[in-house]
């Protein structure tokens, strides 16, 4: 496989770099980069591709780090990835509520290679974990200067296969600590469409997990679950007590310690298997035993099958 030796910047041609994007908002910037890419590659329809990427951007902003956005799409017409890079001194509003975006990396990947975009993103994320690279690239005055900066800093190879590290969510993790109460968890469950919350301490050691079912289980004691059919129990007021002291009940009293976790190095295929076999919706990813991120089933499906 050729990607074995490649690094992300190998996919970027000088002609596909724009220093100083004109637009100050994301859709305009996407259109600019799309037309650059399409003018250098015959047979691609710039406006069609731009609208595809914009549609995707509307659903999920692609800002992967402060100031860095990676709008992307999978298309049929190409056989290998195409990348364009644009920079903006003033910054572009990507509608994610964060800082203005200074570097936009526009990525088109072939549909025939469905996981290449994840592999590219993985290498990219690691390249940019070095903030010096971001600074140098955003300050570059010419495409060749930018590419030189990228080439000299970029060390990460495009990985052969995806690991838990590549598919996990690192930023904006929703966790609770042991001092939180049941009512904190209930509020998140009820309002945020989240099913499982990891419980961590200050050292990022994972203490447990709480899921929606655990709240339910609190109101249905185990001895009732022995029965096959609960329908004869019509008058059942299990929630009164739960509501009475939800503010007093500590998370530690209800969390489970049998959460599912994998190391960052575990291949994505194993993560997929765990989702099926263990019937969980959230897998905690650890690095040297500490919380590194989480993989939610929904995010997994989105990244692999939809994006």
């Amino acid at each position, binding site marked *: 496989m050729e990607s074995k030796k490649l690094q992300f910047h190998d996919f970027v041609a000088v002609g596909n770099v724009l220093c100083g994007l004109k637009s100050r908002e994301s859709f305009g910037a996407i259109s600019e980069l799309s037309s650059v890419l399409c003018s250098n590659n015959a047979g691609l329809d710039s406006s069609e591709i731009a609208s595809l990427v914009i549609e995707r951007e509307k659903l999920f902003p692609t800002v992967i780090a402060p100031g860095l956005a990676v709008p992307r799409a999978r298309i049929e017409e190409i056989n290998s990835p195409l990348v364009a890079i644009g920079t903006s001194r003033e910054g572009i509003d990507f509608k994610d509520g964060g800082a203005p975006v200074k570097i936009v990396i526009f990525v088109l990947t072939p549909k025939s290679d469905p996981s290449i975009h994840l592999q590219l993103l993985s290498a990219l994320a690691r390249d940019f974990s070095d903030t010096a690279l971001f600074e140098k690239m955003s300050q570059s005055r010419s495409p060749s200067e930018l590419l030189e900066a990228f080439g000299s800093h970029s060390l990460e190879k495009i990985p052969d296969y995806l690991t838990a590290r590549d598919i996990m969510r690192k930023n904006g993790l929703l966790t609770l600590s042991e001092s939180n109460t049941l009512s904190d968890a209930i509020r998140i469950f009820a309002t945020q469409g989240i099913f499982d919350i990891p419980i961590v301490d200050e050292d990022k050691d994972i203490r447990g997990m709480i899921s929606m079912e655990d709240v339910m289980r609190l*109101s249905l*004691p*185990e*001895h*009732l679950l*022995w*029965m*096959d*059919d609960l329908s*004869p*129990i019509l*008058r*059942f*007021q*299990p929630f*009164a*007590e739960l509501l*009475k*002291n939800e503010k007093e009940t500590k998370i530690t*009293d209800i969390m489970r*310690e049998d959460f599912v976790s994998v190391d960052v190095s575990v291949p994505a295929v194993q993560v997929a298997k765990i989702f099926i076999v263990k019937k969980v919706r959230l897998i905690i990813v650890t690095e040297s035993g500490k919380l590194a991120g989480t993989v939610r089933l929904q995010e997994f499906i989105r990244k692999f099958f939809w994006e």
Partner: protein
Amino acid sequence: MHEEEGGSNISTSMMLKRLFLLLGISLTVTIVGYNTILDIKQSVACSVFIAIILGTLFFWSFRLAIAFIGLAVLIFTHSLNIPKFVESAALPVILFLVGMMIVVGALRDLGFFTWVVQMIVSMPKISARKFIATTAVASALLACAVDEVTSIIFISTLIFQVCDRLKLNPSPYIIICVLCTNVGSAGTMMGNPVGIFVGTRAGLTFEDFMIWSFPIMLVCLMACIVTTLLYYRKDLDEFDEKLKDRLSRDLGLAPKIDVPYKQGLVVLILTVLFIASHHQLEKLLSLEKNSILLIAPLICSGLIMLFKHDRARYYVEREVDWWTLLFFMLLFAIAGTLEHTHVTSLMAEKFSTVCGASQLTLIPLIMFVSAIGSAFVDNVIFVAAFCPIIEELSSSVNVFPLWWALLFGACLGGNITMIGSTANIVALGMLEKRAKTHIRFFEWLKIGVLSAIVTLLIAWVLIVGLRVEAT
């Protein structure tokens, strides 16, 4: 349903040491036995039996593997053949247990156990001692009605629930209930596989058990409860405080619900009545002794599977503890080999030459030996080997009271150590899994020995007393 303690984490070198110890001891027995009083078949039978005993002691989670291989060794060495294997595998006992396990599955589905637990947690004017004493009595009676392992699984769950709510360490209360469950399991032939095995070997009926073992069990149970409540008085005081605090805040121990219990109760009562009336029915229909006893649970579970046909497969596959039953079958067969090769008659001979043929010396002796034996190995193994010895003794002495001595010795002796009975192991497994606490060997041993001594002394006195009355 039956929970199994997972493979205990022992290192490879430790495993090898134990393996060599096991093979060493069992080979030594063969060699010594062959060179002294035993012939080759007898010594092989002895060494396989000892290997099984040590195997269950050292490698609890490998016991079935050891039993399978042990059986093969017996067949290869001509110590056992297939017809004899089938004969001594005690298939009726196994089927009796299968039937009871299916009935238990249905009782669970029908909410019987839920009802028992709900009754206990919602009892009026609850206090720590009242709660624990009631739970202990319930665990003993449930053990009588179904079996000890089922009883302890449901009762432990109750204790975990209550201790969770009160933020208490459940260990002392689990120990109290397990001790009482083991005492209770001596009360009827359903209580413990030992009961039904002794019953079939000795030709004892359900009524015999009701007259002999049930009342003795009740007295022992009271003594056991008093002993343990006194022993754990400090923990109970803490329990009381937390309970009062919770009740004063107007919080209960469980949600108030009305559990529909009638169907389950009817099924249980009918099953017990059917089993209880076996002797009358056998006389009425002029059937062989204990033939209805052994098939009564099968008839009941057959009817249950007819009515709940959509759950039948679930009951048979999940509620029946095939792992343990297979182990019992092989165990009975291997112990049967000791009988076929006349090892047991040799032992019976020695037994009566050493201690004479008086009931008064044999009763405490058998109780003591079987109690110590069951403290360290599965009491079923011990009883399976001991039954033929008592049968041999019957030529010189009235063995009727000796069966009860064996039964009580085996059941009460199970309390001595934490590995003494299946109920102990199951409860400790649950404790580790649910409450993440371990009980140290000596922590158990202290109260275990104390309660075993108290109950064994009572059982001894009562067996001797009832014996006079019976003769």
